[in-house]
């Protein structure tokens, strides 16, 4: 029962925090918020760790007679996500202390911001714990709304508000789908408990209900074509919020999908294949769009979409494995997905924090205006570099571990199943490799443009390294990332135990079968260490040899040209131009300019703008909404603004119901 008291105390702590933060002086608001977040994190992490160690929590809160009792469960899967949420939120709250300092005169806004941060964390934790459909939806809704208000902190900018409204609308479309799905289950099974979903799947066709859940959770997660809120909301939000949102809130969509996927009983193969294909397309589409963006936070948002794709391939692999009753595929796929979820929450928050530091110092998100920041902000630059290496899946960092697992899953899949699946697997391998290559291009471009070379524009005030408050959480994240990269066997065996405890009885496997896999991961970790040692060794040797001879400093070789200026530097856009030309049918460039007329002898100054548009958002969805609006125009006569008419509608409706019941029509 100890777990229950801990959860209860976490709720009480959150409550006290929410009440007290507005009353505190604005100087210590951020710090006290951090303390509350930390306390909530500790009190909820203990039951979560217990659950991972094999003591899941299962408490029933008394509910009303109609809705039934409310089960509060922490199994290993919830625990994994609770730990990720806590880790990211604590880091985000700590980073936020430094990040929000320039806004200290906006007292009321800050109170709301930090209070909602606490609400946000608590609601995410409850989303993972509640297993009662209606209670779950309430927590889910609180999470969406609190994050909405966190996003629109700079509400005076119309762009931010627009992003916020976009986010709100899309989240509610998602909720609508989830509600329908849950009610569907309720009508089938007569219970709001999550266990009913599994019962429903046992007796009915699985595809349609899963589709509803997939759309509902997929909007949160950002699978294409449901992704279009991400590239707007992430740039609009303050960086510590983008870090937490991209690190965690998106992952709760993944949590939902995994939760439902674990309960599927039939049509596993079909669902798995479709999920795999959607995920691969999501991955390629996401990173391709990321590579052409010039707003670095938008780039990171698209990159989140890519990583959701990679996580999705793991889940797809798991379902295909389950369809074939191949426990190897199931376990590798799911553990790859879970580890990548953890990894992505780490390096994505690191990246958002480091670009947040850049934004705080330079007040621009446009990478074409920056350059050479490595000289003023060497530590931020190194942190961003480490994040970009990790997100590209390069050894010896953590991204490699999860991608390696997923590759291994596909390679296993090629051997064990028939023609169509072999082809699917090999194409997935090729796409993963392609995604890897593209992310290398994207991140060399971003790092090179923002931090290397010469400044491209005079900034209003010269940037300097950010405070230790902002750097410390980033170093902490780097430490965890290295621990995953160098000791993956530990994290992998945790994920193995997790999977064993959450798999349904039909899919059980013997843990000993995976001993070679654990050794393999251990070896990968050791070789990564060897690699790191080799890197350092060769660098030291090189330093020794270079030191033997004199070296001098001079201007960059300009190929004989003696008057180079900073505008001659390669820009980020030109770096990715050949790629965008090659794949222009996916990443569309829109240009706006006026041609010089034939008779125009003295041309005036003119403008040339070009930006890349999202294929789904700007072509497919925009067309659809235009058509919809056009059709709905014909129904305008109903809403004509006359009160009398509205009263009549009401009367008409009541009469309809009355006569309907009278003649037994409804």
């Amino acid at each position, binding site marked *: 029962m100890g777990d229950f008291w801990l959860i209860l105390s976490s709720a009480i702590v959150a409550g006290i925090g929410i009440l007290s933060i507005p009353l505190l002086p604005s100087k210590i608001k951020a710090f006290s918020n951090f303390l509350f977040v930390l306390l909530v994190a500790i009190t909820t992490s203990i039951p979560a760790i217990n659950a991972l160690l094999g003591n899941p929590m299962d408490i029933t809160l008394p509910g009303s007679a109609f809705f039934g009792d409310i089960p509060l469960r922490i199994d290993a899967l919830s625990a994994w996500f609770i730990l990720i949420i806590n880790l990211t939120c604590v880091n985000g709250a700590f980073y936020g202390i430094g990040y929000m300092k320039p806004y200290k005169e906006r007292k009321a806004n800050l109170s709301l911001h930090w209070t909602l941060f606490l609400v946000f964390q608590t609601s995410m934790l409850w989303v993972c714990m509640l297993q009662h459909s209606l209670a779950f939806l309430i927590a889910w809704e609180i999470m969406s709304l609190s994050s909405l208000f966190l996003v629109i902190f700079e509400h005076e900018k119309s762009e931010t508000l627009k992003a916020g409204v976009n986010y709100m609308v899309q989240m509610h479309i998602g909720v609508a789908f989830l509600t329908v799905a849950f009610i569907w289950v309720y009508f089938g099974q007569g219970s709001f408990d999550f266990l009913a979903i599994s019962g429903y799947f046992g007796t009915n066709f699985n595809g349609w209900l899963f589709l509803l859940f997939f759309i509902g959770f997929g909007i949160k997660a950002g699978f294409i074509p449901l992704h279009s809120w991400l590239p707007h909301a992430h740039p609009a939000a303050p960086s510590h919020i983008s870090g937490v949102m991209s690190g965690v809130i998106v992952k709760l969509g993944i949590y939902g999908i995994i939760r439902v996927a674990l309960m599927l009983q039939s049509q596993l193969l079909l669902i798995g294949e479709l999920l795999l294909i959607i995920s691969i397309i999501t991955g390629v589409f996401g990173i391709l769009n990321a590579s052409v963006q010039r707003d670095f936070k938008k780039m990171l948002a698209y990159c989140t979409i890519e990583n959701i794709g990679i996580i999705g391939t793991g889940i797809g692999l798991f379902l295909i494995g389950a369809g074939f009753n191949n426990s190897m595929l199931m376990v590798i796929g799911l553990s790859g997905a879970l580890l990548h979820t953890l990894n992505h929450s780490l390096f994505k928050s690191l990246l958002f924090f480091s670009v947040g530091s850049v934004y705080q110092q330079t007040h621009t998100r446009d990478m074409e205006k920056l350059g050479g920041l490595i000289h003023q902000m060497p530590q931020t630059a190194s942190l961003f570099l480490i994040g970009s290496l990790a997100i590209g899946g390069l050894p010896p960092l953590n991204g490699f571990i999860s991608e390696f697992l997923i590759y291994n899953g596909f390679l296993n899949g090629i051997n064990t199943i028939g023609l169509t699946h072999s082809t699917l697997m090999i194409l997935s391998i090729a796409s993963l490799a392609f995604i890897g290559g593209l992310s290398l291009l994207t991140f060399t471009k971003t790092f090179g443009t923002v931090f290397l070379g010469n400044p491209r524009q005079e900034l209003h005030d010269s940037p300097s390294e950010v405070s230790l408050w902002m750097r410390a959480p980033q170093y902490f994240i780097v430490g965890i990332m290295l621990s995953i990269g160098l000791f993956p066997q530990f994290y992998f065996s945790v994920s193995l135990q997790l999977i064993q405890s959450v798999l349904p009885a039909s899919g059980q496997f013997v843990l000993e079968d995976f001993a070679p896999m654990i050794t393999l991961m251990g070896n990968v970790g050791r070789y990564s260490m060897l690699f790191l040692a080799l890197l350092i060794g060769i660098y030291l040797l090189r330093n020794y040899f270079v030191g033997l001879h004199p070296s001098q400093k001079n*201007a960059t070789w300009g190929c004989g040209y003696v008057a180079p200026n900073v505008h001659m530097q390669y820009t980020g856009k030109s770096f990715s131009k050949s790629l965008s030309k090659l794949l222009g049918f996916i990443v569309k460039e829109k240009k706006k300019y006026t041609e010089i007329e034939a008779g125009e002898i003295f041309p005036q100054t003119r403008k040339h703008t070009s930006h890349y548009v999202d294929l789904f958002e700007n072509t497919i969805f925009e067309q659809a909404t235009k058509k919809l609006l056009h059709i709905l125009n014909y129904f305008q006569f109903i809403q004509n603004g006359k009160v009398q008419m509205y009263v009549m509608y009401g009367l008409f409706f009541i009469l309809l119901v009355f006569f309907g019941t009278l003649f037994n029509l409804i």
Partner: protein
Amino acid sequence: MISLVLILLTSLFFMGVVIRTKSIASGRKGPGLFQPMKDLFRLWKKGSVYSNTTSFIFQIAPSIYFASIIMAILVIPFGEYKGIISFDGDFVFFAYVLALGKFFSIIGALDTGSSFEGMGASREALYSMLAEPAFFILMGSFALYTGHTSFHEIFTSLHFGSYISYGLGALATFVLVMIAMIENSRMPVDDPKTHLELTMVHEVMILDNSGFDLGLILYGTNLKFAMYGALIANFFTGSFPILISILIFFGVQIIFAITVGVLESFSARFRMGNNPQFIFTLTSISILIFFGVLLIMGKFI
């Protein structure tokens, strides 16, 4: 271990053979086989000039590039002898380690703030990205064919039995040669001897490197060639006694070097705009190999 030694040995004369072939093809006598190595030693003894724009990235990039190649070589087996590192899925590690080196060589080039070097970096990133799927499909097909996923196990259990399998071997060799040419920025994709910075790929990225660092990068190219040569040689060494395998190894390496020389002497560089199509063709050839494997395994019905 043995593969590491052999690759290091090959790297000493590989470029020499290429240059000699080119000289003979153009009617000259050409320098000695070890001249490129002597040039490198001279570079290693020189001082360096660093651009004012550069930061520590520029200092560490060549070492990391070089270290990544060494690390990748450690994975390569030799016939029946494992590489120093061998595990299931090690070719993924191989490719990703090389990618890390590439990452640093690209940002090293961008660190100079030069317009030319950025151009080279952009091309390098694009071309290597396009070549990546071909390598993975190739290795994935062999993983399917042999049922193993590490370089060593794939190569030792690779049996050439039917006509189709010989065809596959030939195609695989072609793909690997082409990948080696792309990764090293050689002829059909990039002309290392061009004098115009605008048309360079790899050469323009290292314009600002000098002295020891330049030596490291150039030696890295030699090593990379020898490494891909060793991969190709592994298709043929099979289960022969060690001495014969070593002979075959050097034979394959020399033929590979001569092929590079001949390719560079008798072909012109593609137009930059056509390179992506060409590189992507390799992926389709890899898919052909994959279908061939499916055919052999009787998975087509």
